[in-house]
């Protein structure tokens, strides 16, 4: 299971957020872990279309991810397969994971739910189970607070 879920509220209407996710101009503005320009981006945002994105991290390494759009429903939903051509986390090399993005209109604009799912083989087997991420984080926080021990 091993999916990562992140939620953001964005002060922009869903169609604008959707286009930021599915156009080269948009993707170039935000993709990647560090604040560096993309090395290259190819995006064909329709079902069965491909994307390929190459980016550089601050340590100078280049990473390239590619995949296929599985669902494209403007301006609500986007799903794509995700695989590293090179770079990325070592245990993900040669594995395909899945990215799902859901956009929901809210008063202030859009609520974006980002899911990076199927991060390992074992994971996909149990991906129907949700919600443990929060529990895990909570437990980890509790554990971080102990460590000092003593007060029972």
């Amino acid at each position: 299971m091993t999916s990562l879920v992140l939620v953001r509220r964005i002060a922009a209407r869903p169609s604008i957020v959707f286009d930021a996710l599915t156009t080269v101009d948009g993707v170039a503005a935000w993709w990647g872990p560090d604040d560096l320009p993309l090395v290259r981006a190819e995006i064909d945002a329709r079902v069965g279309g491909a994307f390929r994105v190459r980016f550089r991290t601050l340590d100078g390494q280049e990473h390239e991810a590619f995949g296929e759009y599985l669902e494209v429903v403007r301006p609500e939903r986007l799903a794509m397969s995700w695989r590293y051509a090179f770079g990325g986390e070592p245990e993900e090399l040669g594995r395909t994971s899945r990215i799902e993005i859901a956009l929901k209109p809210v008063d202030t604009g859009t609520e974006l739910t980002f899911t990076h799912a199927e991060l390992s083989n074992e994971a996909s087997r149990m991906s129907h189970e949700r919600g443990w991420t929060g529990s895990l984080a909570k437990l980890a926080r509790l554990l971080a607070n102990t460590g000092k021990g003593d007060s029972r």
Partner: protein
Amino acid sequence: MVNYQDRGLDRVFAALVDPTRRAILARLEREESLSISAIAAPFPIKLPAVMKHLDVLGDAGLVTRAKRGRTVDIRLSPAPLREATDWLRRYERFWSPALDRLAAYAEGREAEVGACEAQSGEAGKTGE
């Protein structure tokens, strides 16, 4: 080596899937150490079922057991849990700043589009 570590993580995540096992861990976090029957007490399940959960937690390295007289003390062993959260956080570190930049970009676009719409008056107010 990577494989070995992967399998360890798989076990930890598999152990954490179950709410009873998560409840056991949360309780051990507060209590330092507990006997098996004390762990079983709050649950509506039978002792053998609790033992099975403890086996899963033990295999994942999340708890340790030590005999003390006629009882067995169970303790939390937090290291694998930290490893598991660190693993997840690497992905979070990747995506979280990216989504912040996405938000900033989309909000900039919204301001531009909004300004255009305001200029072209009520006629252009269809939203798209």
